[in-house]
């Protein structure tokens, strides 16, 4: 039996990988999976690159950054599967809200207005967990959509979730964009309020993906196909609300998140507690594990991330870089592996991002497929290449 070593960071969106192992989806495909908790994304990236892991929970921009040679050891990674859309929250610390005269339940527009007005008398500092993270790009996108210049009006600092309480306590950050359950944990401690979710910035944002080394995937083609099928079943299981209680308990275990099941269940259901005073707020599609083609590795999503890297000056998107980014996503591997499941798979590799305000039928080889919603907060639309 093949053993596949997978690294992960303790977050709610590791759920499909935990189900893959604990509910037995991997074993049904004759695969043994071992899950290894890591302290930093850099470690995960490096261990995947040098072969200590065969596959990994990755932030969507990470595999692109590696293949573009922007970070870490040289490696050639592929992304055949998107683990989830969204699941991040944007928080303001209680100290910040008080300092700028806002109530704990202040909305995003109010927070944006205070930042624009320079209410702190210094740039407002937001923490993000990693430089090449969806968090970072969505935060910048939202700031810009509110007329705030991320380079001038705010500071963005990398603060890993384990160090966030300390950074909040010392006033190093005024807010943070973070994956659940770490926003809810800060709310429960009375340290912050959740004022926006990633879903409200871009409803179709790929959050975590499953990455592998290209050479390993090619050398273990049979196991990889089985793994992707098992992962698809695991994602469907995770998405099913009737499994939520079991899943919360599983994720709460010491080996995974080591937190209360209750705080984990909030993120899975989208029923968030937004303020330390207990204000409840339901966010539709807060985190999506399996719906329509949510797990499909769209080239257009990767190309959008490239446009954001370019927008903020991290790269110059030459045709060569575009080619590298397209080549990182592996939609054909997804199709080959999942076709035997008889599910509806998109016929195209790319789509217009941001055009769907509700679930909409789309072309697929088998039956009817629904895509979206995938709207951006500013109503923007991203067309990767009109010819595709």
């Amino acid at each position, binding site marked *: 039996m093949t053993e596949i070593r997978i690294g992960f960071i303790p977050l709610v969106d590791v759920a499909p990988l935990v189900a893959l192992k604990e509910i037995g989806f991997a074993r049904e495909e004759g695969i043994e999976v071992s899950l290894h908790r890591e302290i930093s994304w*850099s*470690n995960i990236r*490096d261990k995947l690159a*040098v072969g200590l892991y065969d596959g990994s929970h990755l932030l969507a921009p990470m595999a692109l950054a590696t293949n573009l040679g922007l970070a870490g*050891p*040289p490696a050639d990674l592929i992304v055949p599967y998107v683990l989830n859309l969204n699941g991040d929250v944007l928080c303001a610390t209680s100290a910040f809200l008080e300092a700028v005269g806002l109530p704990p339940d202040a909305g995003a527009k109010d927070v944006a207005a205070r930042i624009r007005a320079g209410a702190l008398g210094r740039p407002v500092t937001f923490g993000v967990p990693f*430089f090449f993270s969806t968090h970072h790009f969505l935060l910048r996108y939202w700031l810009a959509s509110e007329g705030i210049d991320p380079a001038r009006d705010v500071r963005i*600092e990398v603060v890993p979730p384990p160090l966030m309480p300390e950074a909040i306590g*010392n006033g*190093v950050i005024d807010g943070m964009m973070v994956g659940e359950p770490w926003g809810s944990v800060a709310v429960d401690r009375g340290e912050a309020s959740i004022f926006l979710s990633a879903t409200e910035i871009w409803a179709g944002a790929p959050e975590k993906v499953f990455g592998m080394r290209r050479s390993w995937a090619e050398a273990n083609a049979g196991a990889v196909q089985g793994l992707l099928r098992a992962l698809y079943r695991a994602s469907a299981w995770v998405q099913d609300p009737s499994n939520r209680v079991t899943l919360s308990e599983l994720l709460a275990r010491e080996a995974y998140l080591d937190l209360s099941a209750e705080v984990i269940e909030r993120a899975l259901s989208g029923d968030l507690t937004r303020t330390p005073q207990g204000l409840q707020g339901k966010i539709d599609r807060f985190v999506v594990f399996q719906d329509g083609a949510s797990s499909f590795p769209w080239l257009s999503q990767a190309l959008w991330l490239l446009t954001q890297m370019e927008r903020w000056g991290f790269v110059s998107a030459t045709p060569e870089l575009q080619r590298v980014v397209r080549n990182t996503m592996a939609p054909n591997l997804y199709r080959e592996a999942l076709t035997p499941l008889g599910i509806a798979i998109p016929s195209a590799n790319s789509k217009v991002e941001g055009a769907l305000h509700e679930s909409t039928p789309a072309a697929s080889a088998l039956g009817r497929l629904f895509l979206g919603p995938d709207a951006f907060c500013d109503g923007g639309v991203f067309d990767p290449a009109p010819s595709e």
Partner: protein
Amino acid sequence: MKIVVIDLQNERAGLIKEALAEAGFPDVVVVAETDRLLERLGELDPDAVLIDLEAPSRDMLEQMFEVSRQVKRPVAMFVDDTGESSIAAAVEAGVGAYVVNGLAKARIKPVMDLAISRYNAFTRLQTELDTAKAALAERKLIDRAKGILMKMRGIEEEEAYKLLRNTAMNQNRRIVEIAEGIVTTAELFHQ
């Protein structure tokens, strides 16, 4: 050459600092976990940074790497000319190395090699220490169980040990597991 060592384990950081000094790198500053890591590194202005891969602040250090791309001080993860093998050895040993200002690779190579060997040695020592501690704890537990048996059944030490060993053999369990059961039960009865 100034080297900053970011390590949560004081003892190990001390060992590395000492070893580097012996190898001709006296200018070494150890930085423990801090929430103002980048500011601190800016002040220290090192040529190279060694970091414990168990440090959660590693992702913060990576930001410096990105920001530096646009400003004056290029920072890069150390990559050996010989290819992937030395990175793999470093990652496996649990240490990362970053070079600042395009420091010649030939100059950092010995620093990296030394860090890898010290990290591996430290892990080995720690494993040995953990094993020794566990063995000691087990022996104490068995001694307590023997004492309880001697008192309850009025038998000699040797006989108490035989009883433990035979029970373990019959149940296909370890002696320490039987001892643990006896100690726990005795504690329950005395509460």
